[in-house]
């Protein structure tokens, strides 16, 4: 299967007068058709920056210093607004984190979905056809079409997120980027929304990038997982393998799993990851995780590790390299000049 989305060696720096924030430091990602990729990481790891870079919606202060983003063999970096307009919404749609702020409070939800349909209407549909289409979309996200005339403030959080999903689906995109779609919702509502998204994904055969900090959501809805730390992907692999505790993992992945209180077994004490998240304005030499790593060696503080394959997992770590020498070296991420 060919890759729908391919990100290669993507570097993004937020440049302000006072400081340079190294948000993404060499991201490699591939996404196949119909696949769901989960991106997990802490606040400030650069998850949302990836999403915005793909949509080419980065803030003005952000500079893509190197790398490429190819969607269906079309290069998105440097594409004209007109070309991007054809991709956004129609091919790639985004669901934002906070449904309370991503809807226009002065328009009825029906009008907002309709606007989306009209904006991307290529076939010059008649009003009646557009109405039909809107009704269909509302049905797909399980909102009664009578509620089209209501304003966002009449809706609960979960229902608002449904409207946002409806808008993302309006043009049946091939790829949906969901940036923490359920973080603002309650667990019971979250499970409703996740179920709805999964159903629609299967029905429409869309690919999805699910950005989240909750490993539980990833376990529920993703096929592949990428773990991010300080602007880098430290581990990628199939869901089953990343969650398999018997395999070797990046110390950060292991730490994340240990830090979550377990629902099904009794533990007296959690094992937190020591220290605080690395400062993206002042990343350490060598491995970005070296300051918090419990397996840190001398080499980690000096040389940036390369991505190696361990089975089907791709992990970026010196410790594993020493521990399992059989790993096949993957040349793609060597020789990077990080702080340019």
């Amino acid at each position: 299967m060919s890759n729908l989305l391919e990100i290669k060696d993507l570097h993004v720096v937020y440049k302000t007068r006072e400081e340079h924030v190294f948000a993404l430091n060499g991201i490699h990602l591939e996404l196949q058709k119909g696949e769901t990729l989960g991106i997990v990481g802490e606040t400030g790891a650069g998850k949302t920056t990836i999403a915005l870079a793909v949509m080419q919606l980065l803030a003005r202060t952000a500079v893509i210093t190197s790398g490429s983003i190819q969607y269906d063999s079309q290069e998105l970096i440097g594409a004209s607004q007109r070309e991007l307009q054809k991709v956004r919404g129609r091919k790639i749609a985004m669901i934002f984190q906070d449904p309370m702020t991503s809807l226009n409070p002065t328009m009825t939800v029906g009008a907002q979905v309709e606007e989306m349909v009209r904006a991307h209407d290529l076939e010059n549909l008649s009003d009646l056809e557009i109405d039909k289409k809107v009704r269909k979309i509302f049905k797909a996200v399980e909102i009664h079409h009578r509620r089209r005339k209501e304003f966002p403030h009449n809706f609960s959080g979960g229902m608002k997120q449904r409207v946002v999903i409806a808008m993302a689906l309006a043009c049946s995109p091939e790829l949906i980027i969901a940036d923490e779609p359920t973080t603002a919702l309650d667990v019971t509502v979250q499970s409703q929304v996740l179920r709805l998204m999964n159903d629609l994904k299967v029905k429409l055969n869309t690919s999805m990038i699910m950005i989240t900090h909750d490993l539980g959501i990833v376990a529920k809805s993703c096929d592949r997982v990428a773990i991010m730390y300080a602007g880098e992907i430290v581990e990628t692999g199939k869901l089953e393998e990343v969650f398999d505790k018997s395999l070797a993992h990046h110390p950060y992945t292991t730490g994340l799993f240990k830090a979550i209180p377990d629902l099904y077994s009794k533990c007296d004490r959690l094992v937190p990851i020591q220290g605080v998240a690395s400062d993206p304005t002042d990343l350490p030499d060598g491995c970005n995780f070296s300051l918090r790593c419990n397996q840190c060696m001398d080499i980690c503080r000096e040389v940036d590790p390369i991505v190696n394959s361990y089975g089907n997992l791709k992990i970026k770590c010196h410790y594993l390299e020493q521990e399992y020498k059989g790993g096949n070296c993957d040349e793609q991420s060597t020789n990077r000049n990080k702080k340019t």
Partner: protein
Amino acid sequence: MSKVLIETKKLKKYFKTPYGKLHAVDGIDLIIKEGTTLGIVGESGCGKSTLARTIIRLYKPTDGQIIFDGKDISKLSEPQLKETRKDMQMIFQDPYSSINPRMSVSQLIAEPIIINNIVQGKNNINQKVSQLMETVGLASRLKNAYPHELDGGRRQRIGVARALAVNPKFIICDEPVSALDVSIQAQILNLLMDLQKQFNLTYMFITHDMSVVKHISDEIMVMHLGECVEMAKTEKIFIKPIHPYSQALLSSIPVADLKMKDKPEIVLMGEITSPIEPMPGCRFRSRCQIGFACPGLDDNKLFEVESNHFVSCRNRVFNHYNISKKRQKTIVIRSAIINGAVSNIVIEGGKVRLIVNQETEFSKDLSMFEYEGRSVKYGELDELGRVLEHTVKSEICLNEEANLLVYQQNLLEGVFIKGQWFNSEQIQYKSAIEEQKKEFKTSQYY
């Protein structure tokens, strides 16, 4: 057994809105023992934070009592409260907005010490601040740092230090870790648990994250629209939740374990009932699987199904005791105290069933039933030996003093006092009992 530190009785807090009264907290009874943690879970808008703020008296309760350390604080005035407030503190959700960005770390921690006059003199205050910073794990070099220089975890440590500054007995943690990343969240949870051991603190821990609440709590109360729907020991509620809402809540937690991927999930349909002037009865009905066919629509009182396991769903209580659907329609359940233990009484048609909890020593009561020559028999005992049956066409009311009053056609038939049956003729103080009878009719539930 450790002593009860905080207790609320029928605590209510209503807010006025243009559309009517919003029942934010509606008749909550809870007990927190010293040195333990009560976890409160529920979705946003169910009244968790209002409950916390009412207990700490940031809101004036509409009705009900708050008993803190043996003292009713629900009607105290502001100046009287000042003393009590030293003993109860709160850690807030958002460490970004709950501390003053213009104050340095040491100023922030010194503020409550100075206001409450905990120690006098600059040196003493400084010493106390350093001591507190060490307790919560803040490096002393951060003394003059400002909040914006610190990350969320460290800011929340300031919040913890500020709460600890006045040596409180009781701390309300209102979602203290939900704004933090998992790796930092674990640090704060560990800190809170260490502090509890060190200072014998009592916590009320509010969160919507079930895995966090399981980790930290001894007891859990599940709230739904201002009411407690289930309360039990943590292990019990996680192994066997009884109320349909708790079941849905527990089943919908995403678990970071692939073995649990295919666990059955209850997805709630429908929307939440409005908390403004809600209809009487069960407030969960619009989302419940049983729906309007539920026999318990008009009844949302708490029943004790097992010792210290309270559930408000009548249907589930019936199922727990294997009562058939047909019979459920004619049944009334009441919780009451019999011989000092809380029990459920089921009144069904003409028959009265006592459902006594396992822990209750009920053999004496039983013999009394028969001994008095009334048509009281050992009923069919259920497999646990808990259900008794006798045939009295009567209604039963209870209080602590006279254990059990039996009425027939509104006339008092007799009283159980300390396990002994007295016919109405035998009772000398009839009028007093009549008065009690009126009172009991209104207070059916203890």
